[in-house]
């Protein structure tokens, strides 16, 4: 039997204008819990942009009773202007990327799972929405010192997150350990400039990271969204490092595991950095092709405005972080 849910008649929706990667989005929900998580997760739009600025996208989440178990069942598919995301058996999230609207339903049990929302659901929803609102997600960690950002790009398994934590322990602020979001700012601080933005997600460290970071002894590994067993820890709490929300990127570093012991940093061209970052952006076709071109333009502007390097390392993360830190100091 069909069950109809009509979003526009959902009663008691609270709405908030929040900021994702510099873009104002409207978050609507009938759950006070979710409204609170969203408020704690994304900054208020009014803190950075004029109230009259139209919202870039709307996310509506309707919490309702469900017979389904809140059992993990990640599933993500997209075609044309549509996408569908599911995290457990008790939720569904629909995307119309043409109208920039997301509509989701979830059970009260899932609505109470703050950690899952912060670690998995919010970042995935925003990541899928990115292209349609002029945001380019890049598969790169990002660290910030004195407002200057360093993008650390590398294939999965290179050791990005481990090196990121080691760098953050040397005084860099952590913006992201995995995905950073490029966007043109509309606020009064730096109108028209491309900036990198982060989300307050946990960092993901593979089990062997505990041999470098004793802080992890007290933490439990768990199943992450992509099925890997990993630590997912909030770096402020676990390592006492600082967070940053946004920065201008001044250095792009491609990480590569070296075969010889030690570390070395070499200059590369912006084109080489571009090729690497572009290869991990999902190409979009049809009505979204122009959005994809805009994403590539954001990456192009970022690498063209930064010093680009390749960093080869085969050393303890603390030694690699020291070598990278010193090399970057030499650049600036």
């Amino acid at each position: 039997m069909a069950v109809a849910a009509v979003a526009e008649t959902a009663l008691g929706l609270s709405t908030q204008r929040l900021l994702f990667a510099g873009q104002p989005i409207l978050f609507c929900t009938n759950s006070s819990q979710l409204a609170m998580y969203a408020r704690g997760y994304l900054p208020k739009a009014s803190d950075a942009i004029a109230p009259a600025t139209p919202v870039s996208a709307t996310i509506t989440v309707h919490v309702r009773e469900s017979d389904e178990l809140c059992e993990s069942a990640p599933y993500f598919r997209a075609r044309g202007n549509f996408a569908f995301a599911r995290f457990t058996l008790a939720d569904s999230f629909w995307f119309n990327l043409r109208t920039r609207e997301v509509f989701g339903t979830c059970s009260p049990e899932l609505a109470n799972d703050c950690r899952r929302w912060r670690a998995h659901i919010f970042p995935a929803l925003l990541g899928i929405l990115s292209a349609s609102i002029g945001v380019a997600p890049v598969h790169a960690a990002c660290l910030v010192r004195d407002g200057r950002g360093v993008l650390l790009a590398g294939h999965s398994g290179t050791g990005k997150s481990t090196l990121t934590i080691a760098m953050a322990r040397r005084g860099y602020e952590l913006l992201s350990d995995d995905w950073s979001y490029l966007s043109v700012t509309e606020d009064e601080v730096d109108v028209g400039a491309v900036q990198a933005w982060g989300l307050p997600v946990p960092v993901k460290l593979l089990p062997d990271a505990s041999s470098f970071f004793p802080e992890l002894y007290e933490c439990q590994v768990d199943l992450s969204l992509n099925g890997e067993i990993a630590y997912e820890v909030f770096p402020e709490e676990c390592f006492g490092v600082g967070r940053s929300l946004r920065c201008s990127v001044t250095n792009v570093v491609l990480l590569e595991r070296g075969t010889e012991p030690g570390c070395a940093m070499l200059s590369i061209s912006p084109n080489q950095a571009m090729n690497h970052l572009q290869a991990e952006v999902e190409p979009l076709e049809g009505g979204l092709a122009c959005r994809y071109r805009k994403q590539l333009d954001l990456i192009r502007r970022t690498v063209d405005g930064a010093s680009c390097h390749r960093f080869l390392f085969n050393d303890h993360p603390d030694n690699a972080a020291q070598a990278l830190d010193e090399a970057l100091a030499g650049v600036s």
Partner: protein
Amino acid sequence: MDPNETGTTPTDMMHRRTPLTFRGRFLWLGTSLTIQTDSQTILRAAETAGLLPQDDCERESQLLWEIATEPSGEAPTNDWACKVTVDNHSLFLSMGTRQWFAFDFESGEGAGFVAAWDAGASCDPNALKYLPEIVCHVGNCLQAKLERSRWS
């Protein structure tokens, strides 16, 4: 979204680019509809669902639906219920945990994924249930919108 698990490249984690090599054009509710799919079983199921096939497949239609099949990996089960969600611009149908269809009322575009036990079979039982659900619910919504526009 583990690319290793799904066999996709890292940049097709959401299976956006499954090639849809089959194309059928139909007449439905007095309008033209093109279905692009990767399996002929979908086109056959569309006929079974009451869509009237047309010869000129390459002609542009008012409605365009893209439907990709995925191997179900299990014996066919079509004991799912169709859950319908409607918002201002779109209709969303969820049919079991890994099947869905979305339709945009303004653009006429639709897209979805369906599990097929045997995509090459002449009549996959799952596809035979999936298509009629879409036809029924999209049709109801389109007719309701037409009625409203007549009275407004």
